[in-house]
């Protein structure tokens, strides 16, 4: 078991395709680190460099304190679970799991013992004589896990191992992988594009975009304090509502101007955040869907909205709300195309399943003033002062 360190690691494909750009990341011994991001963000390339399947253009990569930039995959003592499982189709489950041990020259008895132990952990004992094609998706996934754990490697590398499973099985295997990782206490780097997997499985989550690390934090910190607009929009389902507005000062204090409406901003934000000057270039305002509630009456901390769409999910309802002005027309909210992330002109609110809202309803909604987020309009960075 060992810690893993990326130190300024860069990968350039061809002449100028910068897949991973100056990645610095530390994975502690026994830690479950999730690399998450959209397609093409460089997360898989980073994992493949760690496995030794891709050369490193620059920077230093260490496993257990040893620099492994020029170490062959077979000598890195890491185990990898591939997206498509990469099970050897002509071998049985037992042979698949024991292949690495056999290559390392262990005796048949030792191989059988270790394979048996791993199979018991993964509940695969009854399937050891089967070929991969005779297994279900979940069983194949467990065999791929078994092939990794049977070696007792220094680190587990997992490249979207659940993406080929159906939704129900994915939830089961999510728990299973987390259980096994905790049981074995091996440093794990897990790549996914699914932010729910990232949030539920990782001790820490590293969000990547365009080859660059955006933020690495615990799931809750990522959710509560996104460092930039991208992280705010990527983490959470549905993601944070991001609207462009401007700040103004009036008799009752600071207010956020969204189209023709004004929303009171608690005074503590002036100290906890580096807010732009009043009547300045504006600000991107963020609020989570669960921080929006329906009010009976209007107030300074509420907005007038109209229900545009209603998505019933069973346990909750997602309500899409368009901001309206005082006479009920849709309000104009700046939606600058080509921005870091899309900034829609509607808010999405989570409501209880019994909420009797219908499309076309005019709703007065309150945004939880304790959980406002502000981002710079140009850089997209959070304006929150670091504590």
């Amino acid at each position, binding site marked *: 078991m060992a810690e893993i360190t990326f130190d300024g690691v860069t990968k350039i494909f061809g002449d100028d395709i910068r897949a991973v750009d100056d990645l610095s990341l530390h994975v502690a011994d026994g830690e479950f680190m999730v690399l998450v991001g959209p397609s093409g963000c460089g997360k898989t390339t980073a994992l493949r460099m760690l*496995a*030794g*399947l891709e050369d490193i253009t620059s920077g230093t990569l260490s496993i257990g304190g040893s620099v492994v930039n020029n170490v*062959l*995959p*077979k000598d*890195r003592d*890491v*185990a*990898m679970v*591939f*997206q*498509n499982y*990469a099970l*050897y*189709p*002509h071998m049985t489950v037992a042979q698949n799991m024991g*292949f*690495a041990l056999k*290559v*390392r020259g262990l005796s048949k008895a030792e191989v059988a013992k270790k394979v048996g132990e791993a199979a018991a952990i993964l509940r695969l004992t009854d399937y050891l004589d089967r070929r991969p094609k005779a297994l279900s998706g979940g069983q194949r996934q467990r065999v791929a896990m078994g*092939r990794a754990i049977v*070696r007792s490697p220094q680190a587990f590398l997992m490249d979207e191992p659940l993406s080929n499973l159906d939704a129900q099985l994915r939830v089961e295997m999510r728990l299973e992988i987390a259980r096994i990782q905790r049981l074995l206490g091996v440093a794990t780097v897990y790549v996914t594009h699914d932010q729910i997997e990232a949030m539920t499985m990782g001790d820490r989550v590293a969000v990547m975009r365009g080859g660059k690390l955006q933020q690495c934090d615990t799931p809750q910190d990522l959710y509560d304090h996104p460092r930039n607009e991208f992280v705010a929009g990527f983490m959470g389902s549905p993601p944070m509502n991001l609207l462009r507005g401007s700040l103004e000062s009036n008799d009752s204090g600071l207010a956020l101007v969204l189209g023709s409406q004004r929303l009171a901003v608690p005074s503590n934000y002036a100290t906890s955040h580096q807010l732009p000057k009043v009547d300045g270039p504006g600000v991107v305002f963020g609020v989570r869907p669960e921080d929006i509630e329906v009010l009976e009456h209007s107030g300074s901390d509420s907005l007038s909205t109209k229900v545009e769409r209603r998505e019933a999910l069973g346990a909750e309802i997602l309500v899409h709300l368009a901001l309206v002005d005082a006479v009920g027309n849709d309000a104009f909210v700046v939606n600058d195309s080509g921005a870091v992330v899309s900034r829609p002109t509607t808010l999405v609110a989570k409501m209880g399943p019994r909420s009797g809202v219908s499309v076309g309803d005019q709703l007065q909604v309150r945004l939880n003033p304790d959980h406002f987020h502000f981002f710079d309009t140009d850089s997209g960075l959070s304006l929150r002062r670091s504590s």
Partner: protein
Amino acid sequence: MSTTIPIPATPTFAPKARRMTLKRRRQFAGVVFALPAIALVVCFIGVPIGQAVYYSFTQWNGLTSTWIGPSTWTQAFHNTNLWTALRNNGLLLLSVPFALAIPLGIAVLLHQRVAGWRVFRSIYFLPTAISWVVLGLVAERFFAYQGTLNSIIHALGFSHISTNMLGYQSEALIALGITFVFTMIGTNTMLFLTGLATLDPSLEEAARIDGAGRWRIFRSITLPHLSRFIQLAFVMTVIALFSALFSLIFVMTGGGPGYATTTMEFLIYETGFNQGDFGTAALYGLILFVITGIVGVVQLRLIGSNE
């Protein structure tokens, strides 16, 4: 006064007594669709085989045939040329492993994307696009006493060594075998390259991470994956060996010296068209057909394939 409105008879949708069930209709359709293929097979394979069996019991000069019974059969098996041709076919089978191993090695190297692999791929495939008659002519010039092979040997400084492989009974078959291997390289290399292209690269990557080196990956991952392609190449090569060598032999050696390079296929031609004994030639054709069939069935059984 009441009127009675006649009620029309309720239409019935009971199936006709003779209407076929869906299963039987499907079976019938299957037979109908298979009929053209069956007719072609019967016309172009079944009938000629039947004719060959018939003519093997006749004395046939190509125009008129006279029934002579099984005497052709008893005489044929006392003919030493038949046994020589069968032995030559057997010895040429020894070239099959080379006709598989060399293309396999080339394909694996090309698959590694070595420098210039596209050019090499075209070069190796070239023999496939050239008529075997032309290849035979080139090979004949290569192995001739004043041919390319001796020029190369002399250029390497071994001027005291000269070969004439096609001129000696003991070496002509080897030259033929080498030429046959050369002609099969393109086809088999392409076949193996196709097989390698279907190999999931993540399997190799998984094996690398599992600690396997290049040889181990080839032996444990690549070769098992290619087994079906190797089976196919094996069957195609053996069939070519038994039934497609005629043009090479005709151009390179004419079956000689003596009968040193006469195979069953060439013996059929020799007996039929040079000696005008089509009845015996038909019998030899049947023997070749049976041998090819047995080899085909045995090799499929050996490699455990039912496809």
